[in-house]
């Protein structure tokens, strides 16, 4: 008898399948990939002001939208889709096959990376073309962008899988998950300059990863002079990394221990 395929090989197969299914669901493509773009169009057209010397609101907003894009395509998408898959019986069917659970997780992570990449390319492309967005010029900033995106994607994916145990049914999932994400976006300084928010909102936001992701993305897309408008008067990228890793670890433990295949 032949050997069973490796966990990684099956994870790649799952990823290809997940992406194919995703592309065929027009609503999810529009919601996760084009929605941030639509928001950029609206906010970029309405707020044409400069919020600091040489920093347009669009420039600030793109950083926030990329950060919340990680949360949308990772956390929000998975926390809504997995309960649906549980309701439809697809998870139970998979559980009955020799496919390892880790391959399923890898497949989901690849889906998130794919939709995330599409979203980032579109946001940056439209930002540069229509809203005078300045891309970072130093290698160091691009490096920060890379690790932030990878760590952010991993954390959002794992938290999405972990949170998928919370909704009782697939139908109710979106009603639980979407408000959490939208409120976090407001609290975390995606739509408004963070330091202009009431301090209690800032304190609440500081517990969750989105605030740190957004701040990290600002360190990539805004000039270093903007640190004068940050809470700590610095980008705090070390602390951002620590917070994201902590959430990643907690999420991973929950995802592995609590994941449910059926209701």
């Amino acid at each position, binding site marked *: *008898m*032949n*050997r*069973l*395929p490796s966990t990684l090989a*099956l994870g790649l*197969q799952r990823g290809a*399948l997940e992406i*194919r*299914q995703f592309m*065929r*669901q027009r609503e999810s493509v529009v919601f996760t990939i084009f929605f941030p773009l639509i928001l950029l169009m609206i906010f970029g057209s309405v707020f044409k002001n400069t919020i600091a010397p040489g920093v347009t609101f669009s420039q600030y907003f793109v950083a926030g939208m990329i950060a919340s894009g990680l949360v949308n395509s990772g956390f929000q998408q998975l926390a809504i889709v997995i309960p649906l*898959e549980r309701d*439809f*019986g*697809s998870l*139970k*069917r998979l*559980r*009955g*096959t*020799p*496919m*390892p659970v880790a391959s399923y997780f890898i497949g989901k992570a690849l889906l998130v990376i794919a939709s995330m990449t599409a979203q980032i390319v579109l946001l940056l492309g439209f930002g540069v073309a229509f809203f005078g967005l300045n891309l970072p010029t130093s290698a160091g900033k691009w490096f920060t962008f890379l690790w932030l995106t990878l760590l952010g994607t991993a954390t959002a994916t794992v938290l999405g899988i972990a949170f998928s145990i919370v909704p009782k049914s697939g139908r109710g999932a979106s009603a639980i998950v979407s408000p959490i994400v939208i409120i976090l976006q407001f609290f975390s300084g995606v739509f408004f300059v963070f330091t202009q928010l009431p301090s209690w909102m800032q304190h609440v936001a500081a517990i969750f990863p989105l605030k740190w992701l957004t701040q990290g993305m600002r360190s990539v897309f805004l000039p270093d002079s903007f640190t004068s408008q940050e809470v700590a008067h610095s980008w705090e990228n070390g602390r951002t990394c620590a917070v994201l890793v902590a959430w990643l670890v907690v999420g991973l433990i929950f995802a592995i221990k609590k994941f449910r*295949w*059926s209701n």
Partner: protein
Amino acid sequence: MSVIEVRGLRKSYGENLAVAGIDLSIAQGEIFALLGPNGAGKTTTVEILEGFRDRDSGEISVLGHDPQRSDKSGRIWRNRIGIVLQATSDAGDLRVSECIEHFAKYYSNPRDPESVIAAVGLSDKRDDLIRNLSGGQRRRLDVALGIIGNPELLFLDEPTTGFDPEARRAFWELIRSLQSDGTTILLTTHYLDEAEALADRVAVINHGKILEIATPQKLGGRSTSLTKVQWLENGEIRSEESSEPTAVVKRLASQFPGEIPGLTISRPTLEDVYLTMIGGAE
């Protein structure tokens, strides 16, 4: 050699005792049907054997493996079994062939996807999106996904719900061909004609206990019960129940000059004995 061995299986949900001590032994190559009303403990028993649920007590061996074990051997075990769950509604955005080809990759020694698609009668739907399939076609896809891994043991849960009569006959042929390849099959069904057509042995389960295990022909004393002989006499339906129906027919044959008008000879159907057993257990 037995493929499934169950001794003293018990499982309760809170106060409710779902499985109250079940013993089973299913041989290699056998088609074994589990019959019983809803809530009798059928699904719980099967899900424990499939490794979806943990038991409270009892000993179980399925292909020499304890389904409750969750270490690495579980994957090797799953590679040897196939499961057709009750109706599902997933994977609507995939094409039939994509889905079957993908599932084939999970196994070390899968069947050829094209021949499986042909075997379940979905060849002319192979490029259709799953969400566009009819209920019966979708069910055949479920069966295809259950057998793609070339399993030694196949679990079939209500496999032909929603099939038209022609599709059911075709499905029975498929199941018989799997059996002739040496596959052991555990079937749960509400269709007693299906159990009769396919099963080597049936078990009737109610209130978490097995009432009887026998061949469909012998269940509930069916083979030794009285036979009903019915005929027409002076325009009226007459009948007689007898343990010696041949003698009754001989007597009638001498009584009438030619054919005996309206003659039927019937033994109780599987459904008759099943309903008696279930009713008697209330």
